[in-house]
């Protein structure tokens, strides 16, 4: 028993470090390891994953409490869509086939690796110049942040609020069904659709992941999908890992980490899709 607990603790530390560094939550790492490596039923893997997403988000949140990168207004406004989506998604888990979940989850991993590759290619961040959006003005979503890299105060605007809300609903749905933070989807909604700069997008996504996961976590908690012997060492590990990860991130170039991660996500994603279609056991 000690050995299993230590292994899961180690997985948690790894997932926490990588989740905090990449800003994607630990679920994307934990679910494949638990299902493929431990042969755990996907229902319990998802329950464990929800816990790891919350731990990553809360661990990183307390490390970055005074960060002005975080846009609390954008987070809370969009959170309406993600929390509703997460509840709907969690309720669909019992109805939708597990094989469908595997394919969906695998597809999500492939999408993430493509997204990371795209970010890698894009290189430095480009600030989008947009006309002030009336809805964004009314909701006071436009803000500014201090970029430590370029040492400049960056004012930014957001647009396409309904589009961002729709993608966020989808992100919430995926969170609820798969027990992941769906960070890449959230970053996409803010960065690509709403034209918010990447840095505040990732910081805001990190906070939102925890809140979205909490909306569906109670469903998993009460229906017994969160196994204490797995979730406990995982939670402790992820909290340690996320705290370490936020420190490491400041020293390591994100580009270097993405280079390692693109093929890894491709591999795991492909394997899960094959499992979903019954090609491999």
């Amino acid at each position, binding site marked *: 028993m000690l050995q299993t607990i230590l292994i899961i603790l180690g997985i948690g530390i790894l997932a926490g470090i990588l989740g905090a560094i990449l800003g994607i939550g630990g679920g994307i790492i934990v679910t494949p390891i638990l299902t493929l490596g431990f042969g755990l039923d996907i229902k319990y893997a998802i329950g464990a994953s929800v816990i790891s997403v*919350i731990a990553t988000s*809360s661990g990183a949140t*307390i490390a970055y409490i005074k960060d002005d990168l975080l846009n609390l207004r954008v987070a809370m406004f969009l*959170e*309406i869509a993600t929390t509703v989506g997460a509840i709907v998604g969690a309720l669909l888990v019992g109805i939708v086939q597990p094989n469908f979940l595997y394919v969906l989850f695998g597809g999500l991993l492939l999408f993430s690796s493509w997204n990371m590759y795209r970010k890698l290619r894009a290189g430095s961040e480009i600030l989008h110049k947009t006309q002030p959006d009336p809805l964004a003005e009314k909701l006071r979503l436009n803000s500014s942040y201090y970029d430590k890299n370029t040492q400049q105060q960056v004012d930014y605007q957001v647009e396409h609020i309904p589009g961002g809300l729709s993608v966020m609903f989808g992100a919430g749905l995926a969170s609820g069904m798969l027990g992941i933070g769906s960070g890449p989807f959230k970053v996409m909604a803010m960065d690509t659709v709403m034209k918010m700069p990447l840095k505040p997008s990732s910081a805001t996504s990190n906070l939102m992941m925890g809140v979205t996961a909490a909306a569906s976590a109670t469903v998993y908690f009460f229906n017994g999908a969160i196994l204490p012997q797995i979730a406990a060492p995982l939670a402790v590990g992820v909290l340690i890992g996320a705290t370490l990860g936020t420190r490491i991130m400041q020293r390591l170039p994100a580009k270097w980490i993405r280079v390692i991660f693109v093929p890894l996500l491709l591999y795991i994603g492909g394997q899960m899709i094959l499992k979903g279609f019954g090609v491999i056991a």
Partner: protein
Amino acid sequence: MQPDKKQTSAEMAQVEKIIGLILQIGVLVSATIIGCGLLLLLFTGHSGYSGQNFPTHFDTIFQGLLQLKPFAIIMLGLFCLILTPVLRVAVSIYAFAKERDRLYVIITSAVLLILLFGMVLGYLDI
């Protein structure tokens, strides 16, 4: 206008400090409870429950807590951890109220209500 604004930003810094402290306490309390349950599980070598069983509802968890069952302590800690993002939303309402931002007090309260609705759904096992 200017001194008023300065006072507000000093006040906001104070609010941020309080929020940070509340969240840190929340995460630390959850981690400590989970850690204690895990250590007790390792020392006793028994979960306190037969087979693969574990408590998932408040009544069974609290019964288990009175008997210091490791799985009951762990489940309490995990539930506290699930509450930490809820705590984050709740203190944000306080922050927006301090800023006198009525629109976002309403929006953030709506998020809190949806979260609580999700919790009730889970509790009723629908």
